[in-house]
């Protein structure tokens, strides 16, 4: 066998033309949609580009954005979604409020740890035993929701501003109302979450492992990647983000109650999927998730400015959701990148 001969081996006749434009559309196409809304916005209402309005937009979706960044890791790992997010949010909030007498720092820590403990359970069961993630996190949602109703249902707990821990309570309540200079703290947190999340996903070894796991868990296993651990960390990140979001939400409503996170599960999935993270796993990015979140916020805002009643809004949201995701999936299929 002469290696010189091998050069004459036939070329692969099959080729796939890559259209760079559609590649970019599939990557960050969501921002085109966001851009369209940003152009349409001022046409709809002169109020659109006022600072107050833009702040409102961000305010309505900031917590959702933080939660969505976490859920995106679960989706990216090929495990659809973390449906235990609402309970984790409520749980982290309740624990924080319940432990305020230890001081604000410790209570925040305990709140986050409480949320993380749920993430560990999810990660362990889904990672090691390969339980179906939708069903398992749904079960956890039930159990945790039931537990919280049982323990704290009768006596909802709220940060007592006038009690012994008044200082800790007031700093907790101020959390969601805190400004750093002119910018609300929660915005900074959202952008930190997006930047850190994006860096984790694209720049770290964990992110590269997660991509292999999300693309094919079996291949990852045969590549020496610790698949259960990688999936576990994804669920842990989701629980962490949900805890932060839950604590801010609790601070905002000044009440620790089991129903705090209601709706955040599907809304987060919506933001994640609209943001271009493929439900099949291994595809998408966190910046896109920010885009998805912003789109949801701007959409609601524009509909409000036009004066569309709340009743019509959900319908419009649903339609736009299906269209955006449908178009995205179609462009992926055109690229030959979608085998779902």
């Amino acid at each position, binding site marked *: 066998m002469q290696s010189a001969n091998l050069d004459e081996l036939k070329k692969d006749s099959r080729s796939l033309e890559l259209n760079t434009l559609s590649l970019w559309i599939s990557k960050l196409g969501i921002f085109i949609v966001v851009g369209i809304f940003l152009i349409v916005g001022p046409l709809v209402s002169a109020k659109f580009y006022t600072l107050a309005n833009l702040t409102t937009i961000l305010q309505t979706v900031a917590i959702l954005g933080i939660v969505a960044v976490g859920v995106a890791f679960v989706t990216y790992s090929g495990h659809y979604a973390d449906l235990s997010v609402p309970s984790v949010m409520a749980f982290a909030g309740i624990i924080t409020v319940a432990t305020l007498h230890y001081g604000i720092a410790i209570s925040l820590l305990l709140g986050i740890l409480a949320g993380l403990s749920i993430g560990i359970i999810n990660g362990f069961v889904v990672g090691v035993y390969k339980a179906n993630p*939708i*069903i398992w996190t749904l*079960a956890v*949602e039930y159990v945790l*929701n039931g537990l919280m109703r049982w323990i704290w249902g009768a006596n909802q707990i709220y940060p007592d501003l006038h009690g012994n821990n008044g200082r800790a309570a007031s700093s907790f309540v101020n959390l969601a109302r805190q400004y750093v200079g002119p910018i609300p703290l929660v915005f900074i947190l959202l952008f930190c979450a997006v930047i850190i999340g994006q860096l984790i996903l694209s720049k770290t070894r964990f992110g590269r492992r997660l991509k292999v796991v999300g693309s094919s868990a079996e291949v990852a296993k045969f590549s020496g990647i610790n698949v259960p651990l990688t999936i576990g960390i994804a669920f842990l990140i989701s629980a962490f983000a949900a805890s932060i979001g839950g604590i801010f939400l609790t601070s905002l409503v000044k009440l620790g109650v089991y129903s705090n996170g209601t709706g955040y599960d599907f809304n987060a999935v919506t933001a994640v999927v609209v943001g271009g993270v493929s439900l099949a796993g291994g595809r998408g990015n966190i910046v896109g998730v920010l885009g998805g979140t912003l789109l949801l916020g701007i959409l609601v805002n524009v509909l409000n400015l036009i004066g569309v009643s709340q009743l019509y809004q959900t*319908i419009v949201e649903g339609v736009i959701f299906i269209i955006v995701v449908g178009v995205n999936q179609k462009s992926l299929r055109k690229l030959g990148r979608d085998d779902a």
Partner: protein
Amino acid sequence: MLKTGRNGKISSMVNRYRIVWLCIITFLVMSIFAPHFFNLYNFTTILETMCLNAVVAIGFTIVIIMGKLDLSIGSNLTLGAMFVIGFEPHFGWTISLLIAVISGGIVGLVNGLLVAKAKIDSFIVTLGTMTIVQGIVYLYANGGALYTKDTGLGGWLQQSFIPLFPPIVLISVIIILVFEGILTFTRYGRGFYILGGNKETAWLAGLKTDQYLIQGFTISGMTAALAGALFAITLNSALPDLGVSSTMQVIAATIIGGASMAGGEGSVVKSMVAVLTLVILYNGLTLLGAGNSIQILFSGLILAVVVLQESFSLYQRNKLRGQRVELLKEFSLKR
């Protein structure tokens, strides 16, 4: 019905009829411990309560058998309830019931078309239609509840002509049995399983896979709306958030009933038994003085245990896959 286990007859019996055992155990435990549980009146209540989610579970189970997901069942259920109450004053019960069921069917049809033709993930499609239909429901009733003055039909549906089986239960059970029969004993019904087991197999076998998907989702929409409509009639009213808790309960029951999210497995009757189990659990716990919280907690625990048991046994089986029996004997001899 059309499947037997290869080895370990007993364990496969336990596994295959898991939900039946679970139901019997729950029933026995509640009979022993819950006060006022064991009487005809309570049993009738239990069966009546079962109807709503059990009928919703028909279509949902079919969708799961196809390996898809339908999150819009809750909204569809509310839609059916709203329409049947809303249209009754104008058209009477028969027509309004028809309108309700057909409306649910149309939503299901849209779901099916988007999944089969536009090839969008069913999770996404139905998440979207869930929002849209809920919006339509709010819009239709202006966000409020609807009531009917004609309470005759609702009363009749709950009358105990036959002990334990008032018409509402009888109708629901018959519908469920009919669908079970179709799924198990007809060539058409088996097609759903083949499609869910492997889409390629179904396509190569000449099954019209798109048709199956569209029909499956349409059935799901129709049964959800029908269940909502029947329930609303017995209540003489329709609430705008009627279906919110149903979605999760039906998903849980269907999985507890043994349907596989991967597709190709599931039974409408088993889903019904699972719904019944949850209702018995709720009912018994209530009689024991437990609140809503304990009920949610327990149904969550059951779902968690079922999922754990399932994935754990699969985990064990995969570990030993390919083991040679004759070698095993040798190994134990040497020790």
